[in-house]
């Protein structure tokens, strides 16, 4: 259970590299600065790739939750 509330949720379940990152990029573009995007992924690669995306683009990875084979990321738009 995450401690932050999302403004928008993106579910990439079943998709593999590079789609979770590409869809995250598109989804975050639709948010306002400071809003939180929740990204759900089943791709184990996204565990490293989403933080790398955040590191590169300057958006803040606020929290990561792992539950039942799903990786859930909370990203705050810069």
């Amino acid at each position, binding site marked *: 259970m995450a401690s932050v509330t999302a403004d928008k949720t993106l579910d990439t379940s*079943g*998709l*593999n*590299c*590079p*789609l979770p990152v*590409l869809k*995250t990029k598109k989804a975050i573009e639709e948010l306002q600065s400071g809003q939180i995007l929740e990204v759900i992924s089943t*791709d184990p690669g996204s565990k490293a790739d989403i933080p790398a995306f955040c590191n590169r*683009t300057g958006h803040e990875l606020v929290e990561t939750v792992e539950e039942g084979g799903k990786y859930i990321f909370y990203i705050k738009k810069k």
Partner: protein
Amino acid sequence: MASERLAIIATKGTLDWAYPPLILASTAASLGVETAIFFTFYGLNIIHKEKQKQLKISPVGNPGMPMAFPPSVKKTPIAGQLAGLMEAVFPGPPQIMGIIPGMTDFMTAMMKKTMKDHGVASVEELVELCKEADVKLIPCQMTMELFGYKYEDLIDGLEPPGGAATFINYVLEADKPMIIFT
């Protein structure tokens, strides 16, 4: 002018070799890096209207291919039995499969199915995602002439054909240039 630029050279025209340049380019663009792919030699097939749909995996050209059939194929009822039979009859390295008529098509179909099951985008989808992300797709002028490909044979939305100088200039205009060869 861009501070960072990534340029990828795509030279191979098989299904498996089409993926690395497209995945790297679309992702780099999503990470805010100006990106271009230079399609040369068989890499041109990735952006050729007809040939794009016919890309195949080639067992002959893949001596390092660890397996003839993906595990998920072996689990499917009919294809799995056929795969098992093929491996029993031809127990050698997977390259041998390539000389059996129809085998390349069969293995390509199996690979495409496996990819779909694993949520891997198709080549066409990835090319579209590259275009959406403003990746510059540059066909090689010299190879087009060599292969007899017209600009209109290629997919829409490409940059004008360019040569080696165009490509090198694109990369070195950036403060931090990077080239990947695939």
